[in-house]
């Protein structure tokens, strides 16, 4: 068994040597395919992480009706505190809101001078614990909206869910593109292996005549397919790591991302990618032998 395996491997290596250019080309193409897929996976990974982070710090703004704070301010505040998932309730009076706004405007604060009365409502800012999932924010917001005296609830839902939709679409897009690319990879391996097979056609027919089994004949080609895939996968992973390192160093601590630091693919995903690359090559090799009506 080991002896056979060694022999298959030896023959596969001989084939790779004799068709080195072809194999390098195929492995590079598979590498490119997996680099592209890997880039998508990496982008998704980080978008999801970013989204989770925003969720984790979910804030809900609860705007009150005019005068409601004076009439039932305390009741509203304690009602808000009772909403499940709410960890902090902070009252922001219209006055304080205006002060903060003028602070944010800085030199342009003059535009506020002309206001006859404060246009901003009183509000509560709720902090929600989102370790339980995004749904908690929605429920909390709905419950806050039902409290008497509450005029409006805003929690960036529109924005966040638009982002969620985008990420979901992106995931579907990346997945279909990935599958398409994977199929392309299978065909690329198949066509290169077919070329090697073609170079060996005479030898293979002779091997059949002297009693070699199909398994014996095919094993080196499966090894070559797996090798192509694995080499492509490793190439993709290495390039992805390099690209990631370059991009991450430019991004780390960026204010735009609110201190979010990007992360690389988890080890299991990288390993799964390599297995998938290997499987792509194997599938390509298998496809080579799928020829209906092949001789007895």
């Amino acid at each position, binding site marked *: 068994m080991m002896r056979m395996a060694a*022999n298959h491997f030896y023959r596969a290596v001989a084939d790779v040597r004799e068709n080195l250019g072809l194999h390098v080309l195929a492995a590079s193409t598979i590498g490119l395919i997996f680099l592209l897929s890997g880039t998508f996976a990496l982008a998704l990974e980080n978008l999801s992480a970013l989204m989770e982070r925003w969720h984790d710090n979910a804030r809900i703004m609860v705007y009150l009706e005019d005068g409601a704070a004076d009439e039932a301010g305390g009741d509203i505040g304690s009602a808000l505190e009772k909403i499940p998932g709410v960890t902090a309730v902070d009252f922001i009076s219209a006055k304080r809101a205006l002060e903060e706004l003028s602070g944010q405007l800085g030199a342009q604060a003059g535009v506020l001078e002309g206001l006859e009365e404060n246009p901003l409502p009183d509000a509560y800012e709720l902090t929600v614990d989102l370790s339980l999932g995004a749904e908690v924010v929605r429920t909390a917001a709905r419950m806050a909206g039902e409290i008497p005296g509450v005029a409006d609830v805003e929690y960036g839902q529109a924005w966040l869910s638009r982002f969620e939709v985008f990420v979901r679409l992106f995931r579907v897009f990346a997945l279909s593109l990935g599958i398409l690319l994977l199929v392309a990879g299978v065909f690329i391996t198949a066509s290169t292996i077919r070329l090697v097979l073609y170079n060996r056609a005479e030898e293979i027919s002779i091997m059949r*005549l002297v009693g070699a089994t199909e398994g014996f004949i095919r094993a080196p080609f499966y090894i070559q397919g797996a090798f192509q895939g694995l080499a492509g996968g490793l190439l993709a992973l290495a390039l992805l790591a390099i690209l990631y390192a370059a991009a991450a160093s430019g991004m780390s601590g960026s204010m735009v991302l609110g201190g979010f630091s990007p992360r690389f693919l988890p080890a299991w995903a990288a390993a799964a990618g390599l297995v998938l690359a290997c499987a792509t090559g194997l599938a390509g090799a298998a496809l080579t032998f799928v020829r209906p009506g092949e001789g007895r």
Partner: protein
Amino acid sequence: MDEHDSNTDPIIRMFSVGKYYGSKAALTGVTLDVFRGEYVFLTGPSGAGKTTLLKLLYMAEPMTEGQILIQGMNLSRINKKRMPYFRRKIGVVFQDYKLITTRTVYENVALVLLAIGADKKYIKKKVRHVLSRVGLEDRMNAYPPALSGGEQQRVAVARALCGNPAVVLADEPTGNLDSASAGLVLDLLEGFNAQGGTVLLATHDESLLRRASRILSLEAGSLVLDTGREDPDMAGFGQ
């Protein structure tokens, strides 16, 4: 060797075997027995069906009708999966040698043993042995195109013999060789026969027939003459 004992055991049996290529009959109604240890010449004019008969025996072509048994195995019951194992019992020598031109002489012969998963040491010993038997031990590392036709055919014989087959089928093994080289190849096959191996050799070279112990003659796909195993004399030949 004790011919009496082994001769009672038919190693190849054909019953009304026919082979059609489309509507063209290449072989019709061939019935014959070849016994263990026989050295049989298969002769007949070009197109008589000699190659076709051999091809049916090593399963390069499926037969159209009839039955063939080799060592008691019914060929029509051997499926694709078992065919390699069946073929290992048969050594084949082709007129055009069919050596792998990109492999050395050694590798060409060793392939047969590699394919059955033989041990490396054994392969080395065995291949050297058969190559020395055909007188080509010193050309072990040469590539076939660097050999003469006669030498290439001897490599092919070595390859056919190294798997210890029960039967060797040879299709015009001397067709491309001068008489000296042809003599060497026939000597090798006779040597295999002398050790108890069965040989079925197709040729249309009548000058070789004097070396035959039994002659089968085909004409237009039919068996028209069988000198029989009890009658190595060629008295009946020449109709």
